[in-house]
């Protein structure tokens, strides 16, 4: 079936982008429009956004204050502490969430922004873990955004060694069992109480997820011994200690040789010499491993094309990943020029975050999106921005998001928004200009027959053509 130019433009806007009120700016070459966007992400939305160092300073200030001022109340009642913690971080966390959402709502390069969201989810760090609060936005800005149009290896290295990731997956507290630090500590153990972490050895959390979730995938052919060895390679990569935060040359994360496990390590059959360079070498080799190419290819195709992406497309994506050594623009080129990616059937269901962002773009909402809620209401639909439930990130298939309750929340959200805006918007006109040929005659008719403006807008937002992409 030959696709009209309008249909291609509509798919470019909705499947690859974040939605648009009309398709005019896409022009006559939708593929070229998409590929021209690829590069480092836009400058983040907002000013004075916190760096990872700022986030760390804020955390330590909180702990210091808690120790000195609130200690008696805390031991017996954990709730006030959580509240204080939340309040202490609210401004920072809100600024990060606001920057992420409004940046996506207003971006002139929506495809590149979608890629940013994709990679931030691939390398999930989450403020569901308290020690990561205040660092997630910095992680996206420092580890993900600069590399969206660059190399996978550079993004991998930036993500794995970022303070937020080292905290989130516990590497900051993982020490080589034979490191100088562990030896020193084991001599004076069993004196302090349980609340002070006494680090004596490895924590495998980050090593396992690097292999399972970031590179090879769970089918990638690694063993428990590889996980343990990679954990040893990762020892020493730490988050700056509180007393060093005001030093001139401090960085949020660094390599501390006194925590590093001495001796060489063998990961996937290859030996790596002791020292910080071993991590670069392992991540380089993991990038070139065929399992990584397959894993990333499958994930990218699943995200943009379908919950069960065509194998031929996955294979071609894996080839271009491997042939280019993980150069991401080559991968995107293969994706965007693949005929399979332009099938007219919309099968992917938007996540709540994509639904809210695309609704805001459709209606030109800008900052008013966040006038009433800190996240535009996304959490009410089952997704907490920058707070994914696990290191695997948010799920990427329709059945994960299609529970009756989740569906109901979307209807509630849409009708509330439409209640505010629907009388000022011509939903019939907007349906046509935004969705173009994707809008079915039946849906157009239902929208046209709505009882009033708000109802028409609700129906547009909840139409299969807008819920899916």
């Amino acid at each position, binding site marked *: 079936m030959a696709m009209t130019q309008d249909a291609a433009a509509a798919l470019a806007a909705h499947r690859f982008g974040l939605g648009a009120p009309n398709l005019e700016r896409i022009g006559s070459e939708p593929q070229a429009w998409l590929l021209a966007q690829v590069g480092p992400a836009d400058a983040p939305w907002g000013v004075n956004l916190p760096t990872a160092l700022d986030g760390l300073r804020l955390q330590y200030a909180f702990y210091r204050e808690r120790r000195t001022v609130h200690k008696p109340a805390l031991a017996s009642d954990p709730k006030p502490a959580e509240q204080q913690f939340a309040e202490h971080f609210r401004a920072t966390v809100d600024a990060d969430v606001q920057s992420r959402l409004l940046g996506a709502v207003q971006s002139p390069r929506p495809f590149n922004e979608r890629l940013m969201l994709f990679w931030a989810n691939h390398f999930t760090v989450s403020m569901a873990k308290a020690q990561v609060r205040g660092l997630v936005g910095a992680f996206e800005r420092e580890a993900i955004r600069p590399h969206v149009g660059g190399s996978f290896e550079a993004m991998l290295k930036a993500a794995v060694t970022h303070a937020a990731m080292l905290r989130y997956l516990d590497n900051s507290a993982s020490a080589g069992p034979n490191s100088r630090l562990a030896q020193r500590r084991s001599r004076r153990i069993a004196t302090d109480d*349980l609340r002070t972490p*006494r680090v004596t050895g*490895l*924590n495998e959390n980050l090593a396992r997820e690097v292999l399972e979730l970031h590179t090879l995938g769970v089918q990638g052919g690694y063993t*428990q011994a590889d996980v343990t060895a990679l954990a040893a390679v990762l020892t020493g990569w730490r988050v700056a200690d509180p007393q060093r935060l005001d030093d001139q040359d401090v960085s949020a994360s660094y390599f501390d040789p006194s925590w590093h496990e001495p001796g060489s390590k063998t990961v996937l059959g290859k030996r790596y010499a002791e020292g910080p360079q071993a991590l670069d070498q392992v991540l380089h080799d993991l990038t070139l491993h065929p399992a990584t190419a397959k894993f990333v290819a499958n994930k990218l195709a699943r995200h943009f094309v379908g919950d069960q992406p065509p194998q031929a497309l996955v294979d071609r994506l894996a080839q271009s990943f491997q042939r280019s050594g993980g150069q991401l623009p080559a991968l995107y080129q293969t994706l965007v020029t693949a005929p399979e990616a332009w099938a007219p059937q919309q099968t992917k269901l938007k996540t709540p975050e994509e639904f809210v962002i695309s609704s805001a773009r459709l209606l030109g909402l800008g900052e008013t999106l966040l006038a009433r809620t800190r996240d535009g209401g996304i959490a009410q639909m089952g997704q907490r921005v920058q707070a994914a439930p696990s290191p695997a990130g948010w799920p990427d298939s329709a059945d*994960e998001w299609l529970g*009756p309750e*989740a569906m109901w929340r979307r209807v509630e959200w849409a*009708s509330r928004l439409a209640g505010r805006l629907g009388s000022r918007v011509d939903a019939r006109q907007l349906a046509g200009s935004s969705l173009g040929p994707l809008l079915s005659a039946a849906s157009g008719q239902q929208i046209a027959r709505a009882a009033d403006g708000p109802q028409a807008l609700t129906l547009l937002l909840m139409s299969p053509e807008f819920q899916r992409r």
Partner: protein
Amino acid sequence: MNITPSGLRRRLLLQALALAPALSFAGTAAGPTSNRLVLVILRGGMDGLGAAPVPGDPEFAGARGALAQVTEPLLSLAGPYALHPALAQLHAMYGRGEACVVHATGLPYRERSHFDAQQVLESGGTRPHELSTGWLARALGPAGLKSLALSTAVPLVLRGAAEVDTWAPSVLPEPGADLVARLMRLYVDDPALGTALARAHGLRERTDMSAMTATTGGAGFVLLARRAAEFLAQSQGPQAAVLELGGWDTHANQAAPNGALTQNLRTLDAGLAALREGLMQAPGQGAWARTVVVVASEFGREVQINGTLGTDHGSGGVAFVLGGAVKGGRVLGDWPGLAKAQRFEGRDLRITTDLRAVLKGVLADHLQIASARLEAEVFPDSAAVKPLALLRG
């Protein structure tokens, strides 16, 4: 087009029925079983030796190091076993003969990925992604039994042929019937969206939603447990409910007095107590006497304390089976020992009881699922796994 309100409602009903043939909980004339099953999935890998320590094992104190020291005394069970002090109400149920502990239990899957292990736990297969539907859905569906997930999305364990509703508290205003009717027309060609909407709407019409408020974290779980009890206690209510509680991935500092493990165990304990209380009090009383609750996690954690006062992913762990229908006061399973040579791959608690033996026992004796079906469809290739006898009488 001119549609009267009543005509509209009738249309909605017809469409809803077409899309979701069993929108209501009304049972067949013969009536399905009045027994109730609750599955509580603990996501993240609960530390079995933290929840149910084994101080009587000579290796326990040495292997667990700082994790073996707790500020409050352990709650003793039969033999070498004990419960974490945060599980006081579960311990009371054990004392009343209403709760069993199954130790050194786990899945046929022995790798240590959360995501694969949860897939196996919920799909009932032996390998990850070998099956794409849930074992509970396959057990309930053909038997005509209904289920409820206390969450916004349907967990894998309930995905498949069975009738499933979901429920979670909402703070948003309720869309009207007219809008729902129009949306149903919009979804004529998208049955996935239509079914989801019809079910959500159907469930709301049967429940008083006025008392609902959104909550998060621990309080949320207890609230969901209480709501589960209310739904299950209805005479036409679902036969099975699934609750989930996350946050068990305790890689660091897990023994802290208000640390994640202790808090989570407290929440679990309060939720289980809320279930019991709700099912005891409910009209049509005695629902608790007809209830079995299974609490399970995707895997246990390494025996040895790790380098950051936590535990890394392991295999064998612990499951709890409780309820008025359970012959409790027992710790089940062969104890494999904690010495290095007795561990799986020298690191994990060795699995001596296949978790499927627990689940098959409950499905067979409590929901009367035929053993041929259990072995062929519900847990394929599990003929060698003999169901465990867990119930009274």
